[in-house]
């Protein structure tokens, strides 16, 4: 039997550093889409609370407990990262999304300026706080954006877009840094 080598979505593309901006790949562990069936939202939330200590996340929010994270991922849907959901059979539609997304962390003092060039949303910390998440677009790509720290965001895009995602972020970072260098 052939020995297959697992390759992450951003292998060979990251890490990248531009001025004070760093891009690194995020190791998510298992990823599962959870979409509660009609009328089962409360039941799903109760099971999640019991099993992993987290409720189904509200709209535009991401929650975490230890290594397990739940990221709101669209109308009636969330992604579980870091563990496989248990006890939700018959309560929610679940789809394994492990490896389907390229997930990166972008960090640095100028991170808001970089993202402002690509994402048509107000991501300033006064509006978009740690734990806030959004489904939006970055350049022409559908993405999930989550603030994970004062100067750090996590961005998730379809794996097939990994190269474009890194390219667009790198170009935007170079632009911001070049402009700052002019004073």
């Amino acid at each position: 039997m052939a020995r297959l080598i697992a390759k992450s979505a951003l292998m060979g593309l990251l890490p990248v550093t531009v001025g004070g901006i760093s891009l690194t790949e995020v190791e998510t562990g298992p990823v599962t889409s959870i979409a509660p069936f009609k009328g089962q939202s409360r039941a799903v939330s109760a099971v999640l609370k019991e099993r992993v200590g987290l409720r189904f996340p509200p709209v535009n929010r991401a929650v975490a407990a230890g290594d397990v994270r739940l990221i709101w991922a669209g109308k009636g849907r969330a992604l579980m990262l870091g563990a496989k959901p248990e006890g939700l059979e018959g309560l929610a539609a679940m789809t394994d999304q492990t490896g389907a997304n390229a997930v990166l962390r972008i960090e640095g003092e100028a991170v808001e300026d970089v993202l402002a060039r690509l994402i048509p949303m107000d991501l300033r910390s006064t509006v978009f706080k740690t734990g806030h998440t959004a489904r939006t677009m970055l350049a022409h790509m559908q993405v999930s954006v989550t603030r994970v720290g004062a100067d750090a965001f996590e961005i998730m895009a379809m794996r097939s877009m990994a190269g474009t995602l890194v390219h667009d972020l790198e170009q935007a970072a170079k632009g911001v840094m070049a402009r700052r260098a002019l004073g």
Partner: protein
Amino acid sequence: MRIPCPVCGVRDRREFTWGADALALDRPAVDAGEVAWDDYLHNRENPAGPTRDLWYHDACGTWAVVDRDTVTHAVHGSSLAETARAGKAAAGKGRA
């Protein structure tokens, strides 16, 4: 132009795809007859002013009914298509 998604909040128009006149929500009964179905499928107003249409928020997967004005470009509000009625747009339809 910015459109309020009833789920996510106000977002850039680029995140949305236009779907149809909101009267698409007023689907005739199966046995409503050819005239009603012809009207439903093919006849549309072309209003200058208040307009009600369906938009899809690509980012989150929500269909919304959006009230806007084609003259002023003002966007007045939106609601979930799954619970909305075609409303005002429906009153303007019909050449049957």
